[in-house]
């Protein structure tokens, strides 16, 4: 059974600032502080991290009593709402991880094919034709016209 999530937008943002502030604090105190007449590399990031933590905590506290309606949602409802962006991020991550191995031409065509089929919801053959057209077209545009060095993957051997 999923519990409801009580989270205002300000609270959501505050968590990001707090996380960044804590990260900055942990790693900047390991850097040299220097002296007053020669401030070291730690001074600026440390000061910023402290301020981020302060803002993070204050927004988290303030976010509790904001005028806007509190969003209460189950985890399943949350995922359903953001299905398309999650799919796009997942596919893009897969592309990034595989494109040097497979080569740009193959990886881009497969990436586009899955996007057109699964996200844009085109029919199989339409998605395939569009993927080949744009994949090959982009390869030609970047590799040949703009002379951008793109990985050839296992096709280079």
């Amino acid at each position, binding site marked *: 059974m999923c519990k409801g999530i009580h989270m205002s937008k300000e609270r959501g*943002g505050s968590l990001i600032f707090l996380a960044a502030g804590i990260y900055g604090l942990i*790693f900047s105190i390991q850097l040299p502080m220097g002296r007053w007449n020669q401030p070291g590399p730690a*001074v600026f990031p440390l000061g910023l991290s402290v301020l*981020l933590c302060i803002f993070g905590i204050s927004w988290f506290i303030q976010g509790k009593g904001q005028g806007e309606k509190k969003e209460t949602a189950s985890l399943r409802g949350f995922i359903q709402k953001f299905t398309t962006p999650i799919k796009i991020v997942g596919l893009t991550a897969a592309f990034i991880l595989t494109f040097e191995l497979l080569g740009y031409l193959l990886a881009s065509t497969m990436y586009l094919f899955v996007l057109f089929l699964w996200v844009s919801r085109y029919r199989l053959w339409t998605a395939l034709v569009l993927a080949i057209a744009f994949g090959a077209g982009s390869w030609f545009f970047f590799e040949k016209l703009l002379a951008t060095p793109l990985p050839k993957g296992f096709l280079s051997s």
Partner: protein
Amino acid sequence: MDVLSNLFNGFQTALTFQNIYLCFIGCLWGTVVGVLPGIGPLAGITLLIPATFGMDATGAIIMLAGIYYGAMYGGSTTSILMNIPGESASVVTCIDGYQMTRKGRGGAALFIAAWGSWIGGTLSIVGLMFLAPFLANFAVKFGPPEMFALLLIAFILLGSLGKGSFFKTVPMILLGLLIGTIGMDPLTGTMRFTHGIKDLYDGIGFIPVAMGAFGIGEILTSTEESLVRFVSKVKMRELLPNREELRASWGPIFRGTGLGFLIGLLPGSAHVLSSFVSYTLEKRLAKRPEEFGTGRVEGVAGPETANNAASESAMIPFLGLGIPTGPAPAVMMIALLIHGVRPGPLFISEQPQVFWGLIASMYIGNVILIILNLPLVGLFVNLLRVPFRILFPVILLICLVGTYSLNSSVVELVILLFSGVLGYIFRKLDFDIAPFILAMIIGPTLEMAFRQSLMRSAGSFSIFFKSPIACTLIVLSCLLFIWNIFRAVRPKKAWEKALEEGE
């Protein structure tokens, strides 16, 4: 007269076949990205940066600047014909522009928008021509304390004038400043937050972050929305406004020019703010303000002129001081740095052919844009018939390839995707991402100025108050900070609520 002779030399640089061609490509691409909802001028500029690698600095900046001010023209097309702003600065144009279309005066609205944009843009370039060199000469006298004070007030202004409240914008600025510290410390050579990853030794790349936050972030947001579009048709003969419309538009056009020019000098979303302020002003000055929202030509002329004037005048602090006041000038600065050109107080004196070539090309670009946006408006409207579900995968792929082409680094692709997710999350949480990007870019300069000042003064903070310029700017910063606290506490005025809702 120095200015005129420099401008003449600038035209000699700009009127080469290659530079006219690049100006045309920039204006065309800028109009396209302005017309297409879901991709803005920032994404448009970053996508073409890799294409500039084989060009000289003059050609590169001519093309990229063309995209920036071209997008301001293009954004009004969808606002007027479809009630969908193609670009954030054209949001307010929807209000009366679409109503004019419903009355059968869409063509006239397009004409007035393009005409006002041309006048505002051209007059703003005249101001840029005189003010940028003056500012640069003044700023040459700046040392580290003055530069620190100037950037401090720039950040506080950015927080004051950005989207949302000051205290919502400040943590975004702090986050950007923190991210800007990643990499090698330029003064001591110490690595900060790199965790042994070699690709981070030179810091986080601004282009993957900007492209991710604005390009991928916008796409992730747009794919949530329904994209049913009804595109109104416009015939050529319907383009001309009648006498009454022309007469009614002159006042807003000239007021919009002045307003946009001044607001464009300020950090933040100047082109968005200028269009809202212009609309509010025109409504207040109108004899029958209740008619605004029903298709008043003043509601199109003023805002469209103001946003174009603001986009041109935003180049003044960017070129003259080396301080980009918006995300698009910030990315243009990165592009110039890639070509070994550093905007700032010495830029105009050391690279006059780049500066004056750019100024001259902006005059040419504004002429190209009025040709593209009037007789050829039908072509751009047809772009809107291309389904977004075909466009967005292609745009994603271009973002990925564009980022990879910079340094052939998979780490930068990961940064691109991460920034896209972060940009999307911040959009959903109603936090403005532009101050984050600006802070990332300008932050290292702020830190350097601060540390160098303390090194010069043997650790004494009095160095910031011994200089009259630095002292004045710091005092102004403090007053502005106090004013922002007061503004956060008092109830919002009606126009402030309207501006927030529009954004």
